[in-house]
C-alpha cells in the first residue's frame, strides 16, 4: 500500500498556516461568489487570479496542477460538452450534429458553468491539499461540532482510498477463483454480485472493530479534548474570515439588487 492515503501535503506555507476554519470559509466563499456574481467573467477571473496564485502561495502548485489534469479538466470538460449540446437556448447556430444544435449562447453558457465547476473542485482541492485532517477535526470539535460528526468527515476522507484498494484486492482474489470481470457488460454486472458481500459485510465488521478501538482510546470521553499540534488561529485569521463573509454578502446583495 502506498504511503499517501490522504490528500494532505505536509509543507510550510502561508496557506498551511491558516486556521482550518478560515480555509473552509475561503473555499466556500470562492465557490459562492463564483455562483452568485452577476458578472460573466467572475469564475474565470477567480480561477486564474485567485486559485492559481493560491496554489503557489500554498506551495502545492505541482499537486494542484496534477489533480487539475486528472480530475478537474475531465469533469469540467464533460459539463462543458453536455451544456453546449443539450442547452436549448439561443438561435445563432454555430455547429450542427444530428438533431443537436450548438449555438453561440449555449456555448457561452457552457463555458461559464464548466468554469464554475472547475472553481468549485479547485477550491476544495486546495483546501484538502493544505489542511491537516486531524487539525481540521480538532479545530471543528473545539468549536463545538460533535466529535462523532467530525470523525465521520475525516475518516471518510481517509478511508475512501482504502476501500478502493480493498475492492481491488477482492476482485483479484475472486478472479483467481474464476470470477469473470472482463467480458461483456451484462456478464460483468452479474459477476460483480459476489464482490458486494465481502466489501460491505467486511466493512461492517471492520466498522464495529474500529468503533471499539477508538472507544478504547477515549474517543467519547467527556473531557475537553486537547491537541498535539497547536492549531493556528491568529487575529489575521479572524479578519480574513470576516472580510470573506462580507464579500459573499456583498455579492449576494449585488445579485438581488441587479435582478
Amino acid at each position: 500500500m502506498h504511503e499517501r492515503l490522504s490528500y494532505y501535503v505536509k509543507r510550510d506555507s502561508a496557506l498551511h498556516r491558516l486556521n482550518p476554519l478560515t480555509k473552509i470559509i475561503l473555499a466556500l466563499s470562492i465557490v459562492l461568489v463564483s455562483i452568485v456574481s452577476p458578472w460573466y467573467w467572475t469564475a474565470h477571473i477567480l480561477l486564474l487570479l485567485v486559485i492559481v496564485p493560491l496554489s503557489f502561495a500554498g506551495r502545492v502548485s505541482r499537486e494542484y496542477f496534477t489533480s487539475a489534469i486528472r480530475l478537474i479538466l475531465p469533469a469540467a470538460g464533460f459539463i462543458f460538452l453536455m451544456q453546449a449540446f443539450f442547452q436549448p437556448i439561443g438561435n445563432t447556430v454555430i455547429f450542427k450534429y444530428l438533431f443537436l444544435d450548438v449555438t453561440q449562447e449555449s456555448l457561452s453558457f457552457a463555458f461559464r458553468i464548466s468554469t464554475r465547476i472547475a472553481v468549485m473542485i479547485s477550491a476544495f482541492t486546495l483546501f484538502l491539499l493544505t489542511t491537516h485532517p486531524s487539525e481540521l477535526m480538532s479545530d471543528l470539535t473545539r468549536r463545538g461540532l460533535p466529535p462523532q460528526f467530525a470523525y465521520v468527515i475525516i475518516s471518510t476522507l481517509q478511508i475512501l482510498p482504502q476501500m478502493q484498494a480493498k475492492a481491488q484486492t477482492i476482485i483479484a482474489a475472486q478472479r483467481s477463483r474464476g470470477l469473470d470481470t472482463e467480458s461483456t457488460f451484462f456478464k460483468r454486472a452479474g459477476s460483480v454480485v459476489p464482490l458486494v458481500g465481502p466489501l460491505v459485510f467486511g466493512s461492517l465488521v471492520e466498522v464495529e472493530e474500529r468503533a471499539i478501538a477508538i472507544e478504547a482510546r477515549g474517543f467519547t470521553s467527556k473531557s475537553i479534548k486537547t491537541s498535539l499540534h497547536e492549531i493556528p488561529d491568529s487575529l489575521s485569521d479572524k479578519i480574513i474570515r470576516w472580510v470573506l463573509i462580507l464579500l459573499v454578502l456583498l455579492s449576494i446583495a449585488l445579485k438581488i439588487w441587479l435582478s
Partner: protein
Amino acid sequence: MAFINLQNVTYKYPLTKTPVLQNINLQVNEGEFIAVVGPNGAGKSTLCYTLAGFVPHFFKGEISGSVEVAGRESSKSTLDEWVRNVGLAFQNPFNQISGAKYTVFEEIAFGLENNGVPREEIKPRVEEALSLTDISDLADRSPYSLSGGQQQRVALTSILVMRPKLLVLDEPTSQMDPIGTREVFGVVRKMAEGGMTVVMVEHKMEWIAQFADRVIALQDGKILLEGKPNELLTSDLLSENGFGISRYTSTAREAKKQGLWKSEKLPVTLDEAAEGFKP
C-alpha cells in the same frame, strides 16, 4: 482485595443460543501477568471484551454475575469511565488504526488528546511509549503504510501510552515474527513489574512459560484449568482437549514414550528442552 474480581460471570451475545462465558470466577492481583489460552471459539475475545467493559456496554446481550476491576463494578460504570482504567488492544491491527491521523506519532497521541492531556505532556509521553516498544523510527510514517507486525506494535503502543491500570491484550503478536513477539512479551513483563495488571490472550506457549505469572485455559466458555505456566502447559488435559501445546512439550512427550526423556517434568521452552536432553 483482588484487583480483578469476576464472580459467576455468564454472558450471552444477542444472537448466540448458549452462553459464550459460563460461570467464570477469576481473581487477579495487581501487577500480575495472566495469559489466557484456548481453542478457537472458546470465548477468549469475549472475556477480553468483558474485562474492557465492551461487554455489556457495547455488545448488548445478557450478562449475570459481577465484574469488578480496581474496586469498581462494570455494570455500575459508564464505558468512558471504564476505559480510563482499562486498555484494550486486539488482534486485527488494521482496524485499530483510528483513521483520523496522518502519522504514527499522531496516531499514538490520539488517546491522550481524547482524554484532554495537556499539549506539553503529550509529546514526551508519546516519545517515551515509542521507545518502549522500539518503534521510534516509525514515528513519521503513515500508519497505513506499515506491515501487519508493525501495525500491531503501533496498536499496543497507542494503548500503553495511556498508562492503563489494567492492560487487556487479545492476540497482540499474531502477525509478528519471533523477535517481535519476544520483545512484546518483554515489554508486557516490564509493565507488570511496574504494577500494571495484564491479561493477555496468546497461543505461543514457550513465551507464556517464560513471562507469564499464571495461565488460564478456557474452553467452551468455561475455565478448564488454571495454574503456573510450567505445570499447566505440560498437562495432559490440555493436549487431550485440543489446546495447542509447545513443540518442545510434544517432542519431549514423544521422547518420553521411547525412554529418551528422563525427567518427570516436561519442558515448555527451548532452554528447558535442551537442559532435559543433556546426557
